[in-house]
């Protein structure tokens, strides 16, 4: 079943058309990776899905319900959680308080404090520490745990690997199957194409705000992805409709 359906979404960033008529859909229990170069509109797309940036036109539906104009705090109740770019932990709060902040609305679901601590066992003994003292990878883990505690149906992760060491990134990606296995659908923005191809069921490539390529990693050749990513030659227009 389709969980998220985005149609002709256009989002302006000041004068700039950061997202230009993008359509995509994500099925329940699927991992969709959005790839694209810097400034392709990936983060703006995710922020619009979380309700932080208002779209100029187009629609966003979550499980058949139109949420295009819904403010961010109500989307949390509807089942959308965003792990924002740069982690954005609350710096004066402890690790535990950051996690609890995610549980603020008390949406029911599989994710409890105990479940998150099981996913990231190191957090248990550092729960009292200030979030600002953690390393980048640890902060990313707390940000993911915080988002999970809101028990989202749709988990949006922006720039998961940005600024993190490869070994840290691998360790964070190791928990993704567990998250999806618990019934959460994930939409991740990833600059590292090979990483995205490994973990995603489908990838979707943006170029200058437009959708230029989409498909399953197994069906896409490296060359096609590269051309779409950098906008070399006449990249095929995105396939409308479902694969």
């Amino acid at each position: 079943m389709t969980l998220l359906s985005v149609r002709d979404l256009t989002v302006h960033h000041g004068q700039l058309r950061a997202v230009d008529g993008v359509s995509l859909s994500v099925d329940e229990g699927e991992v969709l990776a959005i790839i694209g170069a810097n400034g392709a509109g990936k983060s703006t797309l995710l922020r619009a899905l979380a309700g932080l940036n208002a779209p100029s036109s187009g629609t966003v539906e979550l499980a058949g319900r139109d949420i295009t104009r819904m403010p961010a705090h109500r989307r949390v109740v509807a089942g959308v959680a965003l792990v924002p770019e740069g982690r954005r932990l609350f710096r004066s709060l402890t690790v535990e308080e950051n996690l609890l902040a995610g549980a603020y609305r008390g949406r029911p679901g599989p994710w409890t404090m105990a479940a998150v601590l099981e996913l990231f066992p190191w957090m248990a003994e550092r729960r009292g520490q200030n979030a600002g003292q953690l390393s980048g990878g640890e902060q990313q883990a707390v940000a993911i745990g915080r988002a999970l505690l809101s028990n989202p149906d749709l988990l949006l992760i922006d720039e998961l690997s940005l600024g993190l060491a490869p070994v840290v990134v691998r360790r964070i990606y190791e928990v993704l199957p567990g998250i999806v296995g618990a019934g959460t659908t994930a939409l991740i923005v990833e600059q590292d194409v090979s990483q995205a191809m490994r973990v995603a069921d489908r990838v979707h490539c943006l170029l200058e705000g437009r959708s230029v390529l989409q498909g399953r990693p197994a069906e896409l050749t490296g060359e096609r992805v590269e051309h779409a990513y950098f906008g070399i030659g006449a990249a095929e227009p995105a396939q409308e409709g479902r694969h």
Partner: protein
Amino acid sequence: MGWVNAVVQGLLLGGLYALFATGLSLMFGVMRIVNLAHGDLAVVASFLALALVSGTGLPLWVVIVVTVPLFAALGYLTQRVLLQRSLSSGPLATLLVTFGLSIVLQNVLLEVFSADTRTLDAGAFATGSFEVSGAVSVGYLSLTTFLLACAALAGIQLFLSRTGLGRMLRASSDDPETANLMGADSRHVYGIATVIAFATVALAGLMFAIRSSFDPAIGPSRLIFAFEAVVIGGLGSLWGTLLGGMVLGVTQSVSAQVDPALTLLAGHLIFLAVLAFRPQGLLAGRTA
């Protein structure tokens, strides 16, 4: 009065300054609003209590118990209909709105209550005291005020650290957009911050009104004490505000021992010294 007594009186007075300053600090910490009407709000609470006492004949403590929650409710309303609208237009707009509010409040009070100087009469309670030792005697009112202030600060601290909504207040202070992503409606969070600010400023205003006289124009000169307590203690820390209030209170009371005319000047000088040598405040923290 001996020196020890002066210090004790200063510490007790400091509790009241801290209670008075808490709301100012909280509104700035959570919403980045510098509330220039803060002092006038304390005066409005005093006049409200005065009107209730003379209008209903209820005892003063009942009036205080009624006025504080009434003011808290007024705070939520003020935030939602007045301040929230100005927040999106930037910090200068909120400064202008609270400045305007200050002037409006002063003039409304002047119109309704005239320029006469008043006090809230608490009878023997306001003047009575007990002797701790030969040199130190403590007024019932000063001690009650101090204990109320400490209880209020401890209550706020518990609320901020133990409850989900309190955590969201601190989270909003760090990063309002990400607090939105946690499902916090910033308008409601800001409303709650204003509720706490209004409740504490009302309580402090009533205590000021029992201690000393007030008139419609005294708000701004009270406001400066709140600013000084906040800045001396360190912005964003409740216990810093308590410390700042105490430093201010002790300075005023000890310098009054030297020469009563020095009282206010000495407090301002300490404030300037902190600004010059330790601008982050004595306890630079971000717990609230």
